[in-house]
């Protein structure tokens, strides 16, 4: 029996270890961190339906990436973080400890500030499909 890769772990680990994201000091997390004073990216897998192959080998993982600015960074920081995540995803093809990625496609890239903060916190919401197999 073959398991599909853990998509969130595969992508999150890749982003955490990416030099450009590390240089921004952004955290890559699965849920909102306790401290929201500095920037972060929340990775959520929305879907992972079966691809065209009946073997369920190459899986299209559908992700949302919430790219939040820190308390002082505002729109420029959220935009830079979102664009950096986008660039990192598009060059993600390769083999990693958690699986092999054959490609990624950006599906959406919008500015959706989060009104749970006062004032609303700047956020870029990226959605992307990442095709991966074990």
């Amino acid at each position, binding site marked *: 029996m073959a398991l599909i890769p853990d998509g969130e772990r595969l992508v999150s680990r890749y982003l955490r270890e990416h030099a450009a994201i590390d240089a921004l000091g952004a955290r890559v997390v699965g*849920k*909102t961190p306790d401290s*929201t004073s500095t920037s972060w990216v*929340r990775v*959520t897998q*929305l*879907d992972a*339906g079966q691809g065209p192959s009946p073997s369920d080998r190459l899986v299209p993982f*559908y992700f*949302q990436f*919430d790219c*939040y600015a820190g308390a002082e960074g505002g729109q420029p920081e959220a935009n830079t973080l979102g664009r950096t995540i986008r660039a990192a995803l598009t060059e993600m093809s390769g083999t990693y400890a958690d699986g092999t990625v054959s490609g990624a496609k950006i*599906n*959406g890239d919008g500015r*959706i500030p*989060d*009104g*749970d*903060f006062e004032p609303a*916190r700047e956020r870029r*919401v990226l*959605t992307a499909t990442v095709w991966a197999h074990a």
Partner: protein
Amino acid sequence: MGLYVPNPNFENELSEDGDLDEPLVDAAESVKGEAEGIVHRIMPRTATSAFEIQTDDDGVFLVNTDYGGHIAEFGSANSPPYAPLRRGVMAAGLRLEEN
């Protein structure tokens, strides 16, 4: 022998004649059913479904009418993105295109 030339305006012409409304409403009903199984309601506006199918001259729309519908779809710091509309489209077997 004639050469078949596809009409690039075929879909627009069908839409203008209203011939697309019925199949689009059928598709919206399918997505609505899937979305109702996914949704985590936030600030409900009604006690019944969060979703309404709305039709006007611009097309057929499936709308989350809850006051917190945007949070259910895209999430916030205090809520993950449940994404009932986007996941509903995929669960209904349709192709999702975001723009």
